[in-house]
């Protein structure tokens, strides 16, 4: 059984310089209340691992605007001119990773695999500095696992055990990130009693979730 964590208390858990895995795709399926609490607290120096940095004023874009992100490991920054400007100004480091490779690297970190072998990125700047492994005559890039100190997860619904359900395109990186961090903080829209989510509907087992944010007021 989990106790609901207050927003401010959840933000306090996260030290300066932490590596944060943050769910969401262009701010869809992103834990917005958690991000607002981090912006309100003002501690930063974070390495953010996410699909993208969203848009200014939305999701991870708010962390970028507040200057709390030192490094972003993402697949796309095209809709956030602030990220691009900070990157060019040298205020923020950006590591671009192909989206499919990014999610597999996080999964590898979460499920205890040593790396990812993918053909994506071969013959492009993505292969620079990486090991290429030949398997039965085909070449693959060896991409390394990614783990976070914290995963910040947005969910449609949680039960008191922390079991999570996701909605439509708000799944995206959330279920995979919930596997790959030392501490997992989940922000559900709704919290329901144990038994209200049937076993077959659970996408993230509650044993992976360390903190459940209290209900929205």
């Amino acid at each position: 059984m989990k106790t609901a964590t207050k927003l401010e208390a959840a933000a306090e858990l996260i030290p300066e310089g932490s590596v944060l895995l943050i769910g969401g795709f262009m701010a869809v399926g992103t834990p917005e209340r958690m991000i607002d609490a981090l912006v309100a607290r003002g501690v930063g120096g974070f390495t953010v691992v996410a699909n993208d940095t969203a848009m200014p004023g939305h999701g991870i874009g708010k962390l970028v605007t507040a200057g709390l992100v030192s490094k972003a490991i993402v697949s796309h920054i095209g809709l956030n001119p602030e990220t691009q400007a900070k990157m060019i100004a040298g205020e923020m480091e950006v590591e671009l990773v192909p989206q499919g490779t990014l999610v597999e690297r996080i999964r590898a970190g979460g499920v205890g695999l040593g790396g990812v072998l993918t053909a994506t990125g071969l013959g492009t700047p993505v292969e620079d500095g990486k090991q290429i492994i030949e398997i039965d005559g085909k070449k693959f890039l060896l991409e390394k696992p990614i783990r976070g100190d914290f995963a910040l997860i947005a969910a449609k619904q949680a039960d008191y055990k922390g079991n999570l359900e996701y909605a439509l395109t708000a799944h995206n990186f959330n279920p995979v990130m919930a596997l790959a961090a030392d501490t997992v903080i989940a922000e559900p829209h709704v919290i329901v009693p144990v038994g209200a989510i049937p076993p077959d509907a659970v996408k993230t087992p509650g044993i992976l979730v360390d903190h459940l944010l209290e209900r929205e007021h």
Partner: protein
Amino acid sequence: MNAKEVIARRVALEIEDGMLVNLGIGLPSMVANFLPEDVDIFFQAENGVIGLGARPPEGMEDPDLTDAGGGFVTAVPGAASIDSAMSFGLIRGGHLDMTVLGGLQVDERGYLANWMVPGKMVPGMGGAMDLVAGAKKVVVAMVHTAKGNPKIMPECTLPLTAARRISLIVTEMAVIEPTDEGLALREVGPGVTVEQVVEATAAKLIVPETVPEMALA
């Protein structure tokens, strides 16, 4: 009919019954407007739904259901929600029948560059590298030239998206197929001559004796 509509209508003819198709944001997404009535196909959005539908009625928008560009969409009956690991598992694993992407450059090898202009614009590759490396059929939909400068080049000067030959280039001026021998001109646009295509193309084109005008959906 403007250039983009010509391109979208021509690409629509490439879509066959039963296909799973990914349309990139921008011009490629226009293709969905020109499908034949009788095809039973599914659109995939890489952010997490198989069975992407049109824009929802006013007031019915769901913040948890968008396309990869963040725009509100619907899901068709029989749609399936997928997370990013499944989404790119389908793409990289050869389960996606066709992807339509925009392009900055394509070259005589059939290689595409579409994710950055060094020192100028670095949106990131998003899902493009996985799509080009993994989809069964890769169609590049783009206007033929950029401010009068050719985009179909002897060799891409911009960083590649993948070192894999794409299947087809569709512009408002031509349909061009990369082959073992080079770029083969297959069709010309409405009212466009072969000479005009050759003029607007920096790459060497293989021009057969007769080149039909493209049909449009």
